[in-house]
């Protein structure tokens, strides 16, 4: 039954309920707060986020006193699940083995990390390069000279 008057509690309840205007003003206030706060986007190719340690970017072949650490044992090629590594090993006159050809197909590689783990000489590691782009498939067959400095494949824009 409808009463002819409102109790204090009813009036308070009505005041607590959102009306028509206050939610609109609240919305405006919220967006204005967003306007004043700092933008979260970054300018990608020029600004970059911190990359975590242990990131699996494209591979790096390590060198020691200007020679490859790799002795061409072929373990990495053996353990590689998608068979992305091709190694041809040769021997110098003084009996030192070295990889004459060391090629990684970055398109086949699944970045599982087995090659890094298995290497007895710790000659291969992952770099933090994650945005290697090109137009031709052949460009992704990286030779040992390319793998020395994978940072040259960082996307520079254009």
């Amino acid at each position, binding site marked *: 039954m409808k009463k002819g008057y409102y109790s204090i509690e009813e009036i308070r309840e009505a005041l607590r309920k959102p009306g028509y205007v206050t939610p*609109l003003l609240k*919305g*405006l206030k919220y*967006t204005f707060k*967003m*306007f004043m706060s700092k*933008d979260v*986007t970054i300018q990608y190719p020029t600004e970059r986020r911190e990359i975590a340690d242990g990131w699996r970017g494209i591979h790096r072949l390590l060198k020691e006193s200007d020679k490859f650490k790799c002795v061409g044992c072929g373990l990495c090629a053996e353990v590689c699940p998608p068979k992305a590594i091709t190694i041809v090993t040769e021997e110098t006159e003084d009996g030192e083995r070295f990889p004459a050809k060391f090629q990684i197909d970055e398109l086949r590689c699944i970045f599982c990390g087995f090659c890094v783990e298995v290497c007895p000489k710790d000659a291969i590691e992952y770099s933090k390069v994650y945005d290697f782009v090109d137009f031709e498939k052949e460009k992704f067959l990286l030779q040992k000279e390319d793998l020395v400095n994978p940072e040259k494949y960082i996307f520079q824009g254009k």
Partner: protein
Amino acid sequence: MDFLIDMAITVVLNLIVFVGLLLIVAYSTWFERKLLGDFQLRLGPMRVGFHGLMQPIADAIKSFFKEDVIPEKADKIVFVIAPMLSFVCALGVIAVIPFGGTVHIFGREVKLILADINVSVLYIFALAALGSYGCVLGGYASYNKYSLVGALRASALMISYELPFALTIIAVVLVSGTLSFSGIVDAQANVWNIVKQPVGFILAIICGLAEINRTPFDMPETESELACGFNVEYSSMKFSMFFMAEYCHLFTISAIITTLFLGGWHGPFLPGTVWFLIKSIALMYFFIWERSTYPRLRIDQIMRFGWKFLLPVSLANLVVTAVVMTIF
């Protein structure tokens, strides 16, 4: 000779205003994208020029080179005329808006207004109504169900919001005692109309939003329901004409509300034109701000709001204003 100088001044003034308006229209797209980005914690256009300042020019060049498609079953003449109608009507409004006081050139007093006609209020209503025909005809001529529904909604919106807008402005006219914009601005030299007409100001902003089809009322081009509404079939320069008309409306509605309620070009210290631009851009900022805040209403909610709330309130506003003006 005098006649020639007069004519030269008029021509130069016209050119300045026209080019300035087009620049403002171009850069209001940049302004809006930048601000919307800021509101959404993004950066907005950054690549073309310093902080994306060349973006409008890049957009213009792009739209010039786009393919211009006319649907096979479209009403070709109307299809071509509609965007022009929309754009020209949007541009024409600026002619009656005073954007500064008087300046002295060659010993002459030049009023900074293109056409100081004494029925400016009627003129802008005529142009606004005519401009809505751009949407309506464009939607009708495209032979597309989405654009037709968009056009219907445009006309529904125009009919329901033109009325409270007109009633609100009539209250301003009552306060100022003149139909001419320069007269209304002169009447606000001491006290702005926003003080005398606070309700009218809010009503004018709401109706203005509906009038220029902006966000809570952007019925003619509801992206999510109508796939862009009345301009689905438009491409290339025809589309960008609609687009420019929309941004031109954004500026002109800000300029009109500035003129009617915020004292036009009056203000201390700075020259009148600067004040006019500051106020208009502040209003534009508000329009973009609310766009980033509010969702779109449903068509029946908009109609109900227009007829059952805005119309009675604006009528009451008018009646109260009239009574107060008669008594005092």
